[in-house]
């Protein structure tokens, strides 16, 4: 095998050709000369229903929420009935201690959730790529935390850790760690919620990274081995760069999932104890449906959305750059 072939294959694998990259057959600006170019009407009919649903169910509510965020309304008043208050909701929200705390917790929850689940998912993906008896069965069994409905897993985790009489605190007290009140102590509750999120999310990362790893040409490793690379060097120098695009995408998606995650936190702690695990989305929920104030609630949601859209658009461009490379 010549060096040129290996380099070429590496290049190919990096671009993800043959997996999900652009194929040579794709129609690109060939105008009216192809049936696809002439069938504009059909293609418009193909796209319009989805566009209508996206606009009605996603874009319109956001526009509506922007109006509500400058009004003093309740979940049952229409925008025409609620008094206009300008940016008062935004100012009140941003200057409140609750918001700052929720923002910081959301940040910690997201960072730990994204990287924690990526590291564990990637480790499992790497391990499952090697020859292991009953490999396929483990692949399915390890997906269970992601497949099982969060209401069910939250119930199970509640049983495991909720009170000092639960199995895990009891087991810990047997080895000397007494009074582990996992959901009663603010810091412990934050840690438990984050671990719960990582537990739910790592199978998603495992699936994403497994399919990226499957596209890595194994000759690349032979080449690295001949060059005297250690296994760690092969991982950081060969594997990670090749799967970098999928890695970025999985980080973007998981960031969105974490910031927008309501049930994982709410079902385990309801945002408590003493608001320790109140993330921005839980705060917005409490403002809207417990305090009956849609103004602050939508203001929080709009602020979250703006930050999230900016972050994901920046990362989206980053992904495109990796893609072109």
């Amino acid at each position, binding site marked *: 095998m010549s060096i040129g072939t290996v380099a070429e294959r590496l290049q190919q694998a990096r671009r993800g050709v043959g*997996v*999900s990259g*652009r*194929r040579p*057959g*794709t*129609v690109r600006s060939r105008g009216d000369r*192809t*049936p*696809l170019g002439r*069938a504009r009407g*059909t293609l418009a009919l*193909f*796209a319009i229903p*989805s*566009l209508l*649903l*996206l606009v*009605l*169910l*996603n*874009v319109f*509510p*956001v526009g*509506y*929420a922007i109006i509500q965020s400058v009004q003093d309304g309740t979940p049952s008043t229409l925008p025409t009935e609620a008094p206009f208050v300008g940016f008062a909701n935004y100012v009140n929200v941003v200057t409140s201690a609750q918001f700052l705390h929720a923002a910081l917790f959301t940040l910690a929850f997201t960072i730990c959730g994204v990287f924690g689940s990526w590291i564990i998912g990637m480790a*499992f993906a790497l*391990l499952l790529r*090697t020859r*292991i*008896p009953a490999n396929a069965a483990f692949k*399915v069994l*390890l997906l*269970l*935390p992601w497949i*099982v*409905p969060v*209401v069910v*897993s939250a*119930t*199970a985790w509640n*049983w495991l850790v909720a009170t000092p009489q639960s199995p895990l605190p009891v087991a810990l007290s047997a080895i000397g760690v007494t009074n582990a009140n996992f959901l009663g102590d603010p810091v412990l509750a934050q840690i438990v919620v984050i671990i719960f999120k990582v537990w739910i999310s790592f199978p998603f990362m495992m699936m994403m990274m497994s399919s990226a790893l499957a596209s890595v040409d*194994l000759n690349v490793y032979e080449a690295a081995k001949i060059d005297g690379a250690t296994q760690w060097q092969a991982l950081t120098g060969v594997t990670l760069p090749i799967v970098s*695009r*999928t890695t970025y*995408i*999985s980080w973007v998606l998981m960031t969105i999932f974490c*910031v*927008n995650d309501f*049930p994982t936190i709410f*079902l385990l702690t309801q945002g408590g104890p003493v608001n320790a695990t109140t993330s921005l989305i839980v705060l*917005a*929920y409490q403002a809207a449906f417990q305090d009956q104030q849609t103004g602050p*609630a*939508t203001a929080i949601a709009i602020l*979250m959305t703006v930050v*999230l859209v900016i972050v*994901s658009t920046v990362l989206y461009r980053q*992904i495109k750059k990796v*893609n072109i490379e």
Partner: protein
Amino acid sequence: MSHTAAAEPGTVATPWRRAPIARDKKGQWWRFGVIAVLTLIVNTPILAVLYLSTQAGPNSTTTGFTLENFARVFAETDVTIWLGNSLTVALVTVVVAVVVAAPAGYVLSRLRNRLVSGYSLILFVVQSLPVVTAAIPLFLTFTVFGLVDSLGGVAIVYIGSTMSVAIWMMAAYFDSIPISLEEAAWMDGATVFGSFRRIVLRNSLPGILSTAIFSFLLAWNDYLIALLFLQSPDKLTLPVGLQTFFQQNAADWASVMAVAVVMMAPPILIFAVLNRYFSLGGIGGSLAGR
């Protein structure tokens, strides 16, 4: 060393499998042990649900393994209604999502122009919107149309939230179908709609199943929308039903876990049967590829 000896049968049993990496053969049973232990630890909460659901409850006379919890929750609670509601909502979501997303995914897969790039960006932005943002306005709007406290209303919200990923997944699958097949059909006078229906869709069963499974999981697992939109006892879906039941019977773990098993059985069964069709790999490509 016992593990080296034990490694031989495994090697012989799968001679057709490409050995991924040279160091692979040795130590496979050691890795098997590691991953078996890890899998067991990871799945402890789920095993706990299964175990507790088959143990006698606080007011029972039996001890040890029993299925009486299931008989009791089906007889004494609304779990049958919740199950029916959840299935209805999830199936409606799946059917509409696939029917709408498949043609849209085809456009995304086959065309490259400014309009399609813009459409792709809309999908991406929509995916990052928090559900809570949309929930309040949709709640008010649905009140006007009488869609609050109705299964149809909930299904509509799920269709909206699964749409962008569903389109990506379909597009990613269509990317893997060579356009030359369609070009041959067009030569023979087929229309774009005809080739889409007879060639593309017919060869896309794994892609359609993937999209269907994703939409099903989203609809089946959702808690927030069901909590906000459904109120009458006969309209509840399983997540809200289970949560309400859990809050009222926190001490009766046997019954709570029996309902939990009913709720997690359908997604697990679906994955057990269809997991080889399910792939998230394509999402990445279709997200970044255009």
